[in-house]
């Protein structure tokens, strides 16, 4: 890393590098701390939190698809109180940004969580307005600009931390949604959450997932994610955190060139527990190869064809 400046700013939050573990794929960091040095991560977005504990959906919760997976965990989590009590102290041992990913059934719940978290040691809040796996909640706000404006606008005053709004890709026009998040006070946006999908067990003539549908992630979604990140980054001035199918440094560089200030690595952790570190090394190697000394030398540096 000598000589290469990987620091990025997400609003007021400074990350030592642009590689963040994506929410829901990294637990609360404990499991992966056996494989990688969490101190070397730009940040960790923890498993989606709700106000009350949630059991999540019935199993099976996962199906494999071509170059991707569908999941329908349904936000199983111990609740934000238990997180603050039982998990945050562990994470705070490490020198990495802790991002609390939150989802509520109502705007009031989002606000209550934002307040609780504002009083804590976390570094940023990621408002998940886009979880496809819970009936009420997230996604109903996330799929219209009006819904996003309302929730972001109302949570903003309750949230003293850097506030990232995580967008769903299941929309007609991501630019409009991104603009709404920015206008309503988001410090940054992150995208994409999963694409709503389905898989069918033709022998049982039933959906593979007990929840019938699930969220698609992994390499399969990368082209869609990249297009949306590019569109969003060219719409808003706030930082964009890009994700969707990133497995290596080259993938991450695509998102950075498209305008992302940081990237999140999700599904790739399952295949390769060292994925976040491999992505980081890959970015560094790319910068070295092109003699770029600063990560901002590549962020948004895509030249589009006329």
């Amino acid at each position, binding site marked *: 890393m000598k000589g290469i400046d990987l620091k990025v700013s997400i609003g007021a939050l400074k990350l030592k590098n642009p590689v963040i573990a994506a929410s*829901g794929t990294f637990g609360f960091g404990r499991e992966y701390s*056996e494989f990688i040095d969490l101190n070397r991560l730009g940040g960790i977005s923890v498993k989606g939190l709700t106000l009350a504990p949630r059991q*999540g959906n019935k*199993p099976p919760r996962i199906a494999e698809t071509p170059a*991707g997976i569908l*999941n329908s965990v349904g936000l199983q989590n111990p609740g934000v109180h238990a997180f603050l009590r039982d998990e945050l102290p562990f994470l705070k041992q490490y020198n990495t940004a802790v991002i609390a990913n939150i989802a509520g059934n109502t705007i009031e719940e989002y606000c209550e969580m934002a307040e609780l978290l504002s009083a804590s040691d976390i570094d940023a809040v990621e408002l998940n307005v886009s979880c496809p796996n819970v009936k009420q909640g997230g996604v109903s706000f996330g799929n219209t600009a009006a819904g996003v404006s309302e929730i972001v606008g109302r949570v903003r005053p309750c949230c003293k931390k850097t506030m990232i709004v995580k967008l769903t890709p299941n929309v007609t026009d991501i630019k409009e949604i991104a603009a709404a998040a920015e206008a309503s006070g988001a410090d940054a946006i992150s995208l994409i959450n999963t694409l709503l999908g389905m898989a069918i067990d033709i022998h049982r003539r039933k959906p593979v997932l007990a929840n019938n549908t699930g969220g698609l992630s992994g390499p399969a979604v990368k082209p869609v994610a990249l297009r949306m990140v590019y569109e969003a980054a060219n719409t808003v001035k706030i930082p964009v955190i890009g994700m969707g199918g990133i497995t290596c440094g080259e993938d991450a560089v695509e998102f950075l060139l498209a305008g992302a200030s940081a990237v999140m690595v999700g599904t790739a952790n399952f295949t390769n*527990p060292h994925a976040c570190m491999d992505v980081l090394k890959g970015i560094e190697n790319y910068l070295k190869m092109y003699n770029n000394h600063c990560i901002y030398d590549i962020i948004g540096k895509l030249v589009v064809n006329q």
Partner: protein
Amino acid sequence: MPKVLKEKILRSEALARSIYRMTVESEYISQTARPGQFVNLKCSDGIEPVLRRPISICRVNREQKTFELVFQVRGRGTELLSRKKAGDSVDILGPLGNPFEISAHYKKIAVVGGGIGIFPLLFILDEYGKHREDNLKAFDLSAFIGFRDKDSIVLKDEFEKACDTCRISTEDGSAGCRGFVTGLLEEELSRKHYDIIYTCGPTAMMKKVAETAGLYKVPCQVSLEQRMGCGIGACLVCACKTKYGDGWEYSHVCKDGPVFWCDRVIFDEQVEDFG
């Protein structure tokens, strides 16, 4: 502590139609793995398939620093694994999960398995076998293993060598006793006491074994299966229903299991089935 390892395959052989045994050289797994634990294998070095595949550790050889996996070809992942040859390397994440409770307090031991569930049971017998060598009389090891038919019988010799009594059932009666392995167990329990029962196999079978064990008040451990994402407890996809106070909760097979005391498990949702 699990590790990501690139290990060398020493041998790969077909044991029966669509059943393969892979012997892998691994200092780390061979020294640290315990019965009931599994490894999560990458099946190709491309991006497809995305997920690793969980396979139980069937046996270890601590001296030769090897371990064995036995698996059935079910779909693309196991198909790719079956094509690997001696000399190829394989990307392994393991050892994973909580092992069976093996204790010298238990003297009369029964393992009950069906289909691909029988493989991890051999490792249990091996562990007690070691104790037995020191103290021959004290241990009594029984194995009850069930197969579809004569042609699907595998590892019979290995089981017979590893225990005192080995009884086989086949669904069609083409070898051993006709019927399910749970019948053999019931028969045996009606005339003999066991200190512990370990079971692995189709859900219906394990449920029945658990009930029978309950009836005879024999402690019983089951090894569950569920589709997995990470294999290490981070993604929460491998949920299984377990008792919690008066109610229930979703535990996770990869982290809280795969081995559970049977009275903690609620079998009503255990739809996945590797029979």
